[in-house]
């Protein structure tokens, strides 16, 4: 096993983890802002 070559996989795994969490949190924020729009429309 070549430690220097495998370090790429370590980076890839850590980046992938935070990418997935980031995407999910992004979707939450999008859903929240859409809901706020809907709530604003309610009064009209």
């Amino acid at each position: 096993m070549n430690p220097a070559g495998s370090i790429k996989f370590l980076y890839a795994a850590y980046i992938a983890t935070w990418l997935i969490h980031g995407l999910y949190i992004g979707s939450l924020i999008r859903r929240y802002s859409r809901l706020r729009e809907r709530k604003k429309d309610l009064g009209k």
Partner: protein
Amino acid sequence: MKRAFPILAAVTALLLAYAFYEAIWVAPMERTMGDVQRIFYYHVPSAWTAFLLFFVNLIASVIYLVRRNAKADAVALVTGEVGVVFCTVVLVTGPIWARPVWGIWWTWDIRLTTTLVLWLIYVSYLVLRRFSESSQTPKLAAVLAIFGALDVPLVYFSIWFFRTQHPQPVIGGGGSIDPRMLHVLLLNWLAFSCFALLVSWARYRLEMFKREVEEAEALESLLVAGSGAQISKTQIPLSREPQ
């Protein structure tokens, strides 16, 4: 309660940063796998967190079926969704670890396969929640969650037996773990559990907000329909009488 959210967020961020530092620079280098072994500090805590969330989902589903408590249903939905996110992390980081260590991306190992099936079950759970039109979606979803939970031990046994029949690549399981590694692992688990709690909390508040908005919309649609009916109350039925 509301004050607690930013505090939890700050604590989680600190914990995650510290756990990251420990995982990369402090934990000792594994002899055969080298640095790539450090994926372990993200992979395993994510798996434990996902299983924990699915377990909470089951409990909440049962509570919902018994008590018909809307909050229990919201908890079930939230833990199911966040659980799928963590489970996805597990399934993505797993192969990234397996490739340099075993030379293959995937193997039908017992833990991998059980996790994959669990992921499939909970994705179908979320699909059901998304596609169901009935006001009784929570009931259907809770029933599906129970079916999923019953399925997991059967999946586990079938793969366990399958594996004993077929040759498998040797997986670096068993044996003892360096106490310093264990320390870093538990620290990461704590950090990710806090993170899961934080995300679930945010998602729960989003769900409650959504329900509030939908209830208001339901009421409004009725009132709009009602204001039109006021005028025509006496005419409408008469106007449709048969000739």
